[in-house]
């Protein structure tokens, strides 16, 4: 029984909106990411890729430093795509599966959060953690660029390409979150996501282009080269043939559309899966 004189409790304060809750959850999840070994791993990978790129350019120069556009087109375009795939695997692969395996999800489920809010908060945290790697890589490339071309040689495509890279990151994380929602064991989720992004998409693309001989507009990997291609002037032709092989290149609008659709569909599906998931 309540002791006399002790007022009955009332829940302190008002419940924050869903958006505020997602943002607050994201802050603490991000804090955990930034202190984790996976963050160090991601930084190490970023530095390794940046170091290789820096050394290759310093050694070969040639066409790579013929113009700022050529420089960023090949080095930023090539490197950041790989980096984003790694970020997706490292931050997104077990984002949902890990909540089950590590039982942290059981902690979150006791809180007055909609399930969708948990998904959102985790997505935002994985996104921002990945952005730190992208920004670090960009900073190192810019230092290289300044070294070769001076302070006033930033092609306009760089800003557009950064936006495309951020869009690609969204689409890729959306997809990894969807796969993460399919599993309750982190290792499986990470393995499947890694195999899919490191080999799956490229193999599928080769098969589709060479054997089925159609435009692989339904593959995310078909869209991502736009990040580098946007630096080319003129933009690579949509269809090119040579030696009996037809190669397709996604146009800019096409690539943007593919990435948006990937983000939207995978997020909707992952969301739907997670909101039906039981914490047995």
């Amino acid at each position: 029984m309540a002791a006399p004189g002790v007022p009955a409790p009332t829940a302190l304060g008002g419940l924050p909106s869903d958006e505020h809750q997602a943002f607050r959850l994201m802050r603490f999840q991000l804090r955990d990411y930034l202190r984790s070994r996976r963050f160090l791993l991601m930084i190490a990978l970023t530095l390794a890729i940046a170091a290789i790129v820096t050394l290759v350019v310093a050694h070969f120069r040639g066409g790579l430093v013929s113009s700022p556009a050529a420089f960023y087109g090949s080095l930023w375009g090539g490197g950041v795509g790989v980096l984003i795939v790694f970020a997706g695997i490292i931050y997104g692969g077990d984002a949902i599966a890990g909540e089950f395996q590590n039982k942290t999800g059981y902690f979150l489920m006791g809180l007055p959060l909609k399930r969708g809010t948990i998904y959102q908060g985790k997505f935002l945290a994985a996104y921002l953690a990945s952005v730190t790697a992208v920004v670090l890589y960009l900073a190192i490339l810019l230092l290289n660029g300044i070294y070769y071309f001076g302070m006033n040689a930033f092609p306009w495509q760089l800003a557009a390409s950064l936006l495309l890279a951020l869009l690609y990151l969204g689409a890729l994380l959306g997809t990894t979150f969807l796969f993460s929602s399919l599993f309750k064991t982190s290792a499986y989720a990470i393995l499947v996501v890694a195999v899919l992004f490191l080999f799956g998409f490229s193999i599928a693309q080769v098969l589709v282009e060479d054997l089925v001989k159609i435009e692989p507009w339904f593959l995310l990997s078909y869209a991502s080269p736009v990040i580098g291609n946007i630096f080319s002037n003129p933009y690579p032709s949509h269809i090119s043939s040579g030696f009996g092989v037809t190669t397709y290149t996604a146009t800019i609008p096409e690539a943007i559309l593919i990435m948006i659709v990937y983000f939207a569909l995978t997020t909707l599906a992952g969301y739907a899966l997670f909101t039906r998931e039981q914490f047995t």
Partner: protein
Amino acid sequence: MNTPSLTSVGLGKSFGSFVAVQGLDLKVEGAKCVGFLGPNGAGKTTTLKMFADMIFPSRGEAFINGISVRKDRKHALSHAGVLIESPEIYPSLSPTEALEMVAEIRGVPRGEQPRRIRSVLDEVKMLDWAHQKVGRFSKGMKQRIQIAAALVHDPEVLILDEPSTGLDPRGMAEVRAIVREQRKHGRLIFMSSHILSEVTDVCDEVALIDRGKLLFYDTLANVTARFSTGNAQVDAVFVRPLDPAQVTGTIAHLPGVKAVELLDPKRVRLGVPPGALEQAQVLEALVALRLGLVSFKESTGALEDVYMQQIARGD
């Protein structure tokens, strides 16, 4: 301010063809501690998880303070603190940070957070560890932090699933003391346990579940009275072994004593009337016999019998 309550209507859960919980109609209400008692596998965790919207009912519905947890988990759970199935906190966070996260998500005003967090860490005796990383804590420490997390927002309803299970004896005693302390704060506590003595020690009322079915829900006193043919049971302990003849002869015939059973040479269990006055008379009479009486207290034996009987009935 409404009365805190937990209600289930026809609540049921099946895993495939296995029925884990069925037709659970329960309403617990008001500031008190209700023990949700049942042997392992009875369906306690399954039931509590449906109250927390961790799993979904196959049938029926669960409500916290009248709010359906399935339809509006956010508002339903805003009234409750929940601890089910030894959850984990992000390992790099300290207890203070973890509780800040809970307080932020629950909307505890920023100005009140430091005081509230200190106060609950103090309640669970974890103030000294407030800034260490949770990832390195022992099971018992984690469990206490989890209890603190369930209390940060001063909830009206506290749902605890076997909070002391898996801890060492000292940890169990500490957790029980913490839960007992919570009764003072005007909360409704719904705590599952498979240990009868824990429920009698901590709770005011008991809901007994076995094989997914609710057998009864009543106050501890009523349950004891109802199942022990109107008598209360008292265990009396003596410094010297008793002469069996003395037990069946003298003690059995003391006024008020309805039944006597020699449990071991120094202990007898007496059937006595449920009233305190009558029990006081029996105590005085026993003392007057000068047999070296050292302890005289109501036994949980009656409830133990009920527990065993009720559970055996299904076999």
